C-alpha cells in the first residue's frame, strides 16, 4: 500500500470508528427511554399505568373473580412525614373502579413537599393495574403540622392472568423541591419528563 493510500485508509478508519464511538455514547443515553419502554411493554418494573375515568367505568366487571389488593407505604428517610394507607387490604372484582385513601401528615413546623412513587408486585401484573386518580400524579405539599387524606382510584383489568390472586401496591414518599409542588409528572416515562 502506498503512503498516501495508507494515510487515506487510516483517515477512513478513524472517521468510521470515531462515529461508532459517538453513536455508542448516544446509545448509552438511549438506554434510558429504551429501558422505560421495555418496562412499560412488559410491566417488568412494577410501573403502573394511568387511564381516564370514562374508560375505566366502561369496563365489564367480572363478578365471579376476586383479587386481593394490598396497600403498603414507605417514607424516605429525608422526608419528615407520617404516611400510611387508611386500608391495609381490600378484595375487589376485576373491572370494578375502587377508591381508597392514604393518610399523610407533616410532622415539622415548615411547609414540606413530597413526591410518591408507586410500585406494584408482582411486576408482571403491573400492566393490568391502572389508576384514574392518584396522589402520586402530582407533588404534594403539606403545611406545618398539616395532615391530609389522599385519594387513589384504581381498576384491576379483567385480563389479569388467572394465577395472580394478590397484588401489592407500594408507595414510597420522597422529599421534593418546594418550588415543584403541584407539578405533574407522568409515571410511565417519568425519567424522560424529569430530564426535560
Amino acid at each position, binding site marked *: 500500500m502506498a503512503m498516501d493510500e495508507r494515510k487515506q485508509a487510516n483517515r477512513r478508519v478513524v472517521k468510521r*470508528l470515531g462515529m461508532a464511538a459517538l453513536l455508542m455514547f448516544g446509545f448509552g443515553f438511549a*438506554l434510558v427511554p429504551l429501558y422505560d419502554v421495555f418496562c412499560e411493554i412488559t410491566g417488568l418494573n412494577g410501573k403502573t399505568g394511568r387511564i381516564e375515568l370514562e374508560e375505566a367505568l366502561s369496563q365489564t366487571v367480572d363478578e365471579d373473580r376476586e383479587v386481593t389488593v394490598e396497600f403498603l407505604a414507605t417514607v424516605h428517610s429525608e422526608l419528615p412525614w407520617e404516611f400510611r394507607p387508611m386500608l391495609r387490604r381490600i378484595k375487589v372484582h376485576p373491572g370494578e373502579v375502587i377508591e381508597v385513601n392514604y393518610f399523610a401528615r407533616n410532622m415539622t413546623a415548615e411547609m414540606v413537599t413530597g413526591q410518591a412513587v408507586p410500585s406494584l408486585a408482582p411486576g408482571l401484573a403491573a400492566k393490568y393495574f391502572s389508576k384514574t386518580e392518584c396522589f402520586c400524579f402530582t407533588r404534594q405539599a403539606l403545611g406545618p403540622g398539616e395532615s391530609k387524606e389522599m385519594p387513589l382510584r384504581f381498576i384491576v383489568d379483567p385480563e389479569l392472568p388467572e394465577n395472580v390472586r394478590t397484588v401489592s401496591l407500594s408507595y414510597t414518599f420522597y422529599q421534593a423541591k418546594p418550588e415543584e409542588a403541584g407539578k405533574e409528572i407522568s409515571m410511565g416515562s417519568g*425519567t424522560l419528563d424529569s430530564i426535560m
Partner: protein
Amino acid sequence: MSTATTHDDHHDHGAPSGLMRWVTTTNHKDIGTLYLWFAFIMLLIGGAMAMVIRAELFQPGLQVVDPNFFNTMTTMHGLIMVFGAIMPGMVGLANWQIPLMIGAPDMALPRMNNWSFWILPFAGTMLLSTLFMEGGGPAFGWTFYAPLSTTFAPASTDFFIFAIHMLGFSSIMGAINIIATVLNMRAPGMTLMKMPLFVWTWFITAFLLIAVMPVLAGAVTMMLTDRNFGTSFFDAAGGGDPVLFQHVFWFFGHPEVYIMILPAFGVVSEIIPTFARKKLFGYSSMVYATASIAFLSFIVYAHHMFTTGMPVAGELYFMYATIMIAVPTAVKVFNWTATMWKGSMTFETPMLWAIAFVFLFTIGGFTGLMMGIAPADMQYHDTYFIVAHFHYVLVTGALFSIIAAFYYWAPKWTGHMVDERLGKIHFWWSVISVNVLFFPQHFIGLAGMPRRIPDYSLQFADWNMISSLGGFAFGLAQVFFIYVIIKTIRGGKAATAEVWEGSHGLEWTIPSPAPYHTFETAPEVK
C-alpha cells in the same frame, strides 16, 4: 501493495535522548514501554491498597483503618487495577508487539498514540488525588452503583467521574489505533488468517472497547448531571430508577471483563506453541472462539443483576446465555491443552506462567459457571466467593498473562535474557502465595462472608488470616519482580534474534534488542 515506500523521514538515527524523548515520542516501542511502566506503577499502588484491605481483614473487628477508609481502599483498589494496571498493561503489550508481529514500521496513528498514553498519568493522578480531598475518595465500590455514588457520595466523586472520562478517551483512541494498524499496516502476504493470535485477540478487543467505553462515559455523565444539574436518571424521587444504573453499567461492565482477558488469551496462545515446539492447535477455531466470546459478552450482562428482582423468564435467558460462553472458552482451553499434547515441552519461566494461567484461569471460569446458575447465585451474590472468582480470572488470568508476556518478550525488548533462576523463584513464590491468598476466599464466601465490609463474624477468622498471609507474600513477590525487571534491563546474557528455540513469527526475525526503527522495508510473509 507496494513495499519499501513506508519509511519516514528519520529512519537513520536511533532514539533521541533526554526527558523530552518520552514526552514527544511517537515511536510504538517507546510508547509501549511507557504504558508498561505506568501499568506496573499502578499495579504497585493498587497492590499497596490491597495490603491495607488484607491487613484490616487479618482479624475480625476494626483495628487498622476506619470503615470509610476501608471502603475507599476497596473502591480505589478495583478502579486502579482495572483502569490503571490491567488495561494499560495490555495496551503496552499491543504497542510493542502488534507492529513487530505484523511487520509494520509503527502504529498507524503515531501522534494519536502519544496522546492516548499521555492522558493516562493525568487521569491516574486525578483519580488518586481524591484520596486527599475533604470527605475522602470514592467509597462506593468500583461498580459505583447509584444512588450510593450519586446522592450519598463524597464531593470528590466529580473528580472520579472526570478521571473515568479521560481514561475512556485514552482507551478509545488506543483502540482506534490498533484497528487502523491491523487493517492498514500489515506486511504484504500477512493475511488476516495468518496473523498471530495475540494480534487477533487485540483486534477483537479493540472493537469491544469502542462499543462499550462510550457507554461507560454516558453512565458517568448521567451520574454527573444527577449530582450537579438536577436530573433524575437514577433517582426514584424524580421518576428515575436506580436499577437503570446497573443496566447501563453492566452493559459496559461485562464486555469490559473480556477486554481484560481476551488479550491474555492471545499472549498464552503465543507462548504455549513456542515451548511445546508445535504449531498452535486449532488456529482458526481460536479466532472464531474469540469472536464469539466477544459477541456473547453483549447479551449476558444481566447475570450481574440476578438479585435485583428480575422476572423468571429474564433470569432463565441470562442464565442460559451466560453458560453458553463456556463453549467457546472451553474450545480455547482444549486447544491449549492439545497444543501441549505430545509436544517437546520445556519449562522456561514464560511457559510456567502460561501453564499456570491455563490451570488457574480455568478454576476462575468454573466458579463463573457456578455463579451463572441463577438460583445458586442468590447465595453467592456479593460474597467473598465473587471476590475469589474475579481474582482468579483477573490476577491469575489477566495479570499472570502480562507477567508471562514480560518473561517471554523482555529479551526482545531489552536484548538481555531474564535470569531463569530469579524468574522461577518469582513464579513459584507468586503461584503458591496467590492460591493461599484467593482459594480460602471461596470457603468464606460460601459460608456467607459479604464483600466490601471491614469487619466480619468470628467463624470467618481463620481463613481470613490465612488469606491475608498469602496476600502479604504475594505482594512481596511483586516487589521482588521490580528487582528482576531492573536487573534484566541493566544486563544479563545477550539474547539472540530468535531468543527461544521454538520461537516463530516476525518479531523473532529482527535483532535483540529490537532496533528503534524496524520493518521500514516491509518483510515478505510467505
